[in-house]
């Protein structure tokens, strides 16, 4: 999921300065779970914008706000509500912001949330980041625990000198990723694997903006000006 946090009202009102008719999008998926753009938050935002003297032309919460087809369909169905809209406020992730630009053929769209990470729903109400979306997964070498994400410095060959009492130098409340990896590899009986030297990462696959295109039934991943296919050697 894309974890999001709603921006402060003050900041949202600053973005909407000089714009009167606002349409609000939420998202029925991630932003609903994160309570940043579900029904309740969209209704609350509506009230707050009206209190601030805005006209809320309409609200909509598509099942997923990052799917252009879904959002375009919603815009067409509610066409009347979109006439004369000054701008859109999206209470969902940054992908959804662009989806609304696309689905409205270029309307003015404001992000109402900060997109903070791609996360796991740890359990209801707790979301945690375990993957930094680097594009070239090496977590098999570390027992499925990602050193790029769990270590504050993304070190691949072991801990820095700042690890103390199993905690990270950046935040002593937080586990040192390398101690977690060590414990896991010990449990798995694979400590030997950690002795392997990890070469400097090839960061081409993290060079955005990245795309995936399905061509002739085969996904093609495009990053850093290169194409990658799973079927290639």
């Amino acid at each position, binding site marked *: 999921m894309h974890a999001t946090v709603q921006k402060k009202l003050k900041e949202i009102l600053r973005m909407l300065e000089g714009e009167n008719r606002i349409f609000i999008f939420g998202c029925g998926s991630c932003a609903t779970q994160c309570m940043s753009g579900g029904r309740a938050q969209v209704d609350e935002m509506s009230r707050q914008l009206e209190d601030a003297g805005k006209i809320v032309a309409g609200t909509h919460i598509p099942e997923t706000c990052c799917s252009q087809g879904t959002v375009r369909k919603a815009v067409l169905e509610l066409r009347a509500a979109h006439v004369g809209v000054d701008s859109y406020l999206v209470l969902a992730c940054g992908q959804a912001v662009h989806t609304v630009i696309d689905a409205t053929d270029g309307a003015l769209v404001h992000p109402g949330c900060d997109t903070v990470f791609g996360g796991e729903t740890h359990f209801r109400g707790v979301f945690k980041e375990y993957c930094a979306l680097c594009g070239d997964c090496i977590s098999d070498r570390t027992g499925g625990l990602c050193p790029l994400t769990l270590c*504050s*410095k*993304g*070190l*691949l*060959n*072991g*801990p*820095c*000198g*700042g*690890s*103390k*009492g*199993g905690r990270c*130098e*950046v*935040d002593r409340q937080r586990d*040192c990723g*390398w*101690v977690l990896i*060590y414990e896991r590899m010990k449990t798995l009986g694979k*400590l030997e694997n*950690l*002795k392997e*030297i*990890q*070469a*400097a990462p090839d*960061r081409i696959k993290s060079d955005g903006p990245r795309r995936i295109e399905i061509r002739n039934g085969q996904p093609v991943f495009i990053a850093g000006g290169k194409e990658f296919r799973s079927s290639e050697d």
Partner: protein
Amino acid sequence: MSRLKEMLDGGSFAVTAEIGPPKGVDINRVIEPLLPFRNRLAAVNVTDNQSSIMRASSVAASVMLMQHGIEPVYQLTCRDRNRLALQSDALGAYALGIRNVLVLSGDHPKVGDHPQAKPVYDLDSVNLLEALDGLRKGFDMAGQTLTAAPSEFLLGAAVSPESDAPELQLMKMEKKVRVGADFFQTQPVFDVERFARFREETASLESRVLAGIILLKSPAMAKFMNENIAGISVPQDIIDEMASVPKEDFYKKSIEIAARVITGLKGVADGVHIMAIGWERHIPAVLDAAGL
């Protein structure tokens, strides 16, 4: 060849000290205290934005040390530069006459005075050592041939023998040796026996290790380090020993403790790296008392 390399190769007990460039252009100010005893030092480390606090550059301060007849150990961290900048700075440093480089991950920007900065860490310390070893052999990380190689680089790295995650430390130390680290400097050592055990455990690596020595300024500083700094543990009896003298004699006690540890380390370490943090003027007394 660097003097440090000569001493390490020749089996002499090498003494290094450390300066941190200031937040400003008055670099000479931190070099001057070392001048009266510069001949007793094999080399002097120059920190690279230590503790992630922005300061004048380590390459500039290294060159200024050389102008004063002191051999630098140029510290290079992975925090602020990507692989292009790291290799390029290393080549430039060599061209300026720098031979010793100490590679570190570098403290995270969040703990320093520019916490808003982007942490780089394109390479980790193992990757960077490997890259510098490659430069030494005439190739950059992309496999391109250099027009002239920094063939006499002496590559250093850090290790924490008293870390509370010792297996991981040893594992990483071993990797550093495999990719070309010639010597190590350590976090402060107080427990000579523990350090001797560490040397036995790592004997097969055949590496040269300069044990870290810190001049304790007060019992409070020792307690603070125990609680807050990773890889440092000052034994209680040393804290008590510091506390047993009046405040105005702390420096004498500190010299005595440091000299005692150094004496114990002879034959166990290949030398010592003294972190005096402002008490550089006491280094000669430490060396005298340790018979160096």
